[in-house]
């Protein structure tokens, strides 16, 4: 309790109890209540000229609004055109000397554009707090914070109640992609990879690809030193190689393959039609390797012409090393 007593002592000195000056607290509270009712709830802008001081200063103006009374009116108009039935309830109003603190909640229906969001018809409510200083019966200064992030979230429609701290994240909702959607489309040694999930989409946990492999093509023997890999074969006839244990597996659609890290492996489409498979790698990040080593393009149906000449194995090995992959190259 010692620290509290010390603070209490300091408080008395700090607050200058000796001469607090004339107290207009009740009058100031009445002014604030009338102002909110008339200006915000009824849209009576003439009261702005009456109540705000000519050199009114707002320290939390919305970005881009003008200073002074003009800016205040613009803000009222912006909110009232987006939420024509807006009603602010004053949950708490305190006054001390010439300062007033207000805790309020706005309720309204989203019927007009608001910060780039077209009307949704949703009923919203959002909190706010405002501090003002009153001088000679007029509002001279304002500091205010509204829960705009919370309001935006309600308009975005994830149904959460408003909250003071909003963290926007790709990880708080279910998402999906269409058949040809891809975060990164690459071709490596004839294999086309549509990346459905990059490491940035999965907190680094995995990357997922759908790969199309022409007949006779495949991925040469290589080793991931840090990642586990899994394939789910969708179409085609395949040979899977486990070079660590010198085994070859002949597999087809709906076979599942697990490749633990540090196991040398490769595969080849041994059929006469293009083969397709799902490739999952964990931890994620292999898309970076594909982008570094292969051709990057946008439209999966229109790949660029394949590079001419033999593959540059030295360069490939250099990029592979960055991703902790080693290849058995013709040079050894």
């Amino acid at each position, binding site marked *: *309790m010692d*620290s*509290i007593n010390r*603070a*209490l002592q*300091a*408080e*008395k000195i700090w*607050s200058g109890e000796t001469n607090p000056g004339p107290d207009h607290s009740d009058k100031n509270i009445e002014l604030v209540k009338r102002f909110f009712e008339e200006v915000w709830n009824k849209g009576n802008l003439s009261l702005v000229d009456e109540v705000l001081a000519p050199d009114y200063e707002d*320290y*939390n103006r919305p*970005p881009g609004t003008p200073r002074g009374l003009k800016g205040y009116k613009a803000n009222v108009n912006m909110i009232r055109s987006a939420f024509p039935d807006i009603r602010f309830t004053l949950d*708490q109003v*305190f*006054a*001390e000397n010439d*300062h*007033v*603190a207000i*805790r309020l909640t706005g309720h309204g229906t989203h019927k007009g554009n608001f910060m780039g969001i077209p009307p949704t018809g949703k009923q919203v409510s959002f*909190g*706010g*707090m405002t*501090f003002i200083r009153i001088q000679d019966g007029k509002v001279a200064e304002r*500091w205010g*914070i*509204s*829960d*705009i*992030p919370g309001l935006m979230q309600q308009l975005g429609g994830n149904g*959460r109640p408003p*909250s*003071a*701290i*909003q*963290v*926007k*994240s790709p990880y708080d909702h279910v998402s999906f992609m269409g058949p040809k959607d891809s975060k990164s489309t690459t071709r490596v040694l004839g294999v086309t990879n549509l990346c459905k999930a990059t490491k940035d989409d999965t907190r680094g946990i995995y990357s997922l690809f759908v790969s199309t492999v022409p007949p006779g093509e495949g991925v040469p023997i290589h080793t991931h030193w840090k990642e586990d890999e899994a394939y789910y074969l969708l179409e085609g006839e395949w040979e899977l190689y486990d070079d660590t244990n010198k085994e070859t597996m002949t597999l087809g659609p709906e076979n599942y393959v697990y490749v633990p890290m540090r196991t040398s492996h490769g595969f080849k489409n041994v059929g006469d039609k293009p083969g397709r498979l799902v490739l999952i790698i964990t931890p994620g*990040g292999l898309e970076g390797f594909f982008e570094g080593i292969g051709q990057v393009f946008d439209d999966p149906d229109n790949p660029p012409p394949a590079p001419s000449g033999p593959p540059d194995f030295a360069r490939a090995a250099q990029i592979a090393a*960055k991703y902790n992959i080693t290849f058995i190259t013709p040079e050894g």
Partner: protein
Amino acid sequence: MSDIAKSLYRTFVEEVINKAKYDLIPEIFAEDYLDHNAPPGAPVGGYDAIRAVPIMFRGAFPDVHFVIEDMISQDDWVATRVTGNASHLGKPFMGIEPTGLRVSWSSMGFFRVANGRIVEHYGQPDLGSLHAQLTRKIEPGSLDHNRFIVSRYVYATNIGELDRFDEYVDPGFVDHNALPGQRPGVDGLKDAYRMFSSAFSDLWYTFEDLVAENDKVVGRGVIEGKHTGSFMGVPPTNKVIRWTGTRIFRIVNQKVTDGWIDLDMFGMMMQIGAIPVPSAS
């Protein structure tokens, strides 16, 4: 009554938030305290709820400092307005990895006191402004950008993603305090980090201060990790070890080219028992 509310809030800001004295919380708050605006996922009641918010801010902003701008009280309530000043040098905040940026934001609250303790609270931090500041465009080559590069590079070491060095560290990096036998360039730098991270798990370097001038960035901070592996021949003690470090970096063309890194190796070696602790008498 109002004096008590104000002094309790003042102690909370100046001691608990600004000096991280979380053990004072039971002297300020009631055990059944309720936070009406607790962040999603955070506890809403009790001492855990009170600790959660300042710990979250200090984690992201290790030098966080609040200034009380206004307090207005009525009956057993106090309304407060503060300004937070801080540098984003620690953990990610609102999903944004450390930027090294200095930020300033407002926060307001309404607190109620009963029986000499704060019992409930409504809060409204200006997170919209804070988010906008942390995502503002940083001019390449500016001092802010140099602080950004150093913050992100050190963050990469903290999360163990040394691959990210390619983005921030020059391949020809010169370590002016290289360990004996350290390879030249960025590879040697990675080796040095691996040597520490293999001996200390959950190793985390926190900048408590980061100053940029001309082409240099100077950081002072604290390193913490659990000694779970052998370090320079000293077997693991499984103790959490904390030691300080001062680092100076040179940035050329948006890459870290030089480092002068001084760590309190003596203090660290004493804590892991490699060097005897001098007796006080």
